[in-house]
């Protein structure tokens, strides 16, 4: 995965989030987190350094765009990218159901981490029912849209990015 490809994906993520994400939020209530889906996609890639930095960048961008506390989303997205990379051997990358579960699970985890970090810095705040409903709605949207976006990104990657030449078994 090249740096250019990652950059293009990040730019497209911002555009997608600002258009489709906002529309879905307008109609369905909870907000689609395209940044998280793309962070999961980065985590699935074999190049771990680029993935980690891309995940971190996505988080920072989300923090800046949302106008919240800087670093909270960066933290959650970095953890997500790292975790997805760590459990890579436990799921099939092109299986819809695997990605569906992965997106749902990491959506909840992402919210959990951000909420935890938020309470760490602002302990007097409380969780409302709307927040919980929004979290579940957002997780469902991520779970349904995630597999589609990730498979699309994989297709783009295989088409546009030249992969490193495979090393044959005895020389590996």
């Amino acid at each position, binding site marked *: 995965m090249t740096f250019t490809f990652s950059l293009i994906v990040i*730019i497209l993520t*911002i*555009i997608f989030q*600002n*258009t489709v994400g*906002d*529309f879905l939020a307008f109609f369905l209530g909870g907000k689609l987190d395209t940044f998280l889906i793309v962070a999961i996609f980065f985590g699935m890639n074999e190049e*771990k*350094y680029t993935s*980690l*930095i891309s995940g*971190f960048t996505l*988080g*920072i*961008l989300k*923090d*800046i*765009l949302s106008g919240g*506390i*800087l*670093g*909270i989303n*960066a*933290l959650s997205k*970095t*953890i997500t990218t*790292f975790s997805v*990379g760590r459990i890579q051997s436990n799921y099939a990358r092109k299986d819809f159901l695997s990605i569906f579960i992965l997106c749902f699970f990491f959506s909840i985890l992402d919210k959990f981490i951000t909420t935890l*970090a938020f309470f760490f*810095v602002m302990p007097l705040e409380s969780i409302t029912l709307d927040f919980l409903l929004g979290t579940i709605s957002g997780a469902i949207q991520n779970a349904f849209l995630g597999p589609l976006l990730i498979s699309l990104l994989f297709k783009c990657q295989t088409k546009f990015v030249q992969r490193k030449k495979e090393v044959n078994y005895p020389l590996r």
Partner: protein
Amino acid sequence: MLNYFIGKKHLIIFIFLLCVCFTLITLSIRSRTMLEPVEKTIFYFIGPILKVSAVPKSWGMKIWRNYLDIQDHRKENIKLKKELAELKEIEKSLWELKSEIARLHENLKIKKSKDYKYYFSRVIGKEKNVLLKTVTIDKGSTDKISKNMLAINSHGLVGRILHSNPFTSRVLLITDPRSPVHVRVQRTRSQGIFSMVTMDKGTVKFVSKDADILPGDLLVSTGHGGVFPKGIRVGYVTNIKKGSSFKKIEARPSVNFNKLEELAIMEVTKRN
């Protein structure tokens, strides 16, 4: 040792990024102003991207608002159409009421006399066949309507009561060939017998060939025969032809029998 760390390079990067995150969080809470230049720089780069993404967003919102407006207009249109239909119905009934009021005003012009008593009724049925030309009215014997009472309207003689039931009565129209009326020309007092040939055309028989009659002369009842009282308007002379012993006079009734709606039933209290 170094090789171990090189092997765990991604873990070190991960820990480093976590540290950066925590630092950013701390800085963000304690002194946000310090991070403002960083934010501004990033915004400087992503600003154009946000601008580009705002275009389809505004298009989409515009389309959605237009769609909602169309929906509202559609609902409003349906509502207005419904209101319009209701108003049209009201307008129709108003016209009906207006014409009814006009007719009733006309009926009120019927000269009130001590010799007659009037009962106003509505026509509820018509029957036209070879044998009978009658209409049914909504007043009967319980309303003191009895046989041979006269039916008139503001234009003139309509007929007489053929028979009355408790709640309705049947009026034999003068258009029935078997209901002739003894008439006289109001202007010259020449007499004859008026009977109908068709629904709107009648004749006056047995008028002397010397009688002075002109088209447009008014025909009124003479009161002979005891059924129709004297002086009620019956029709107008339309055409005169010379015959061998009597004049052949064509006349039309003063009443339009196709537009009968209200009738005044006249009871003669004092015969003249």
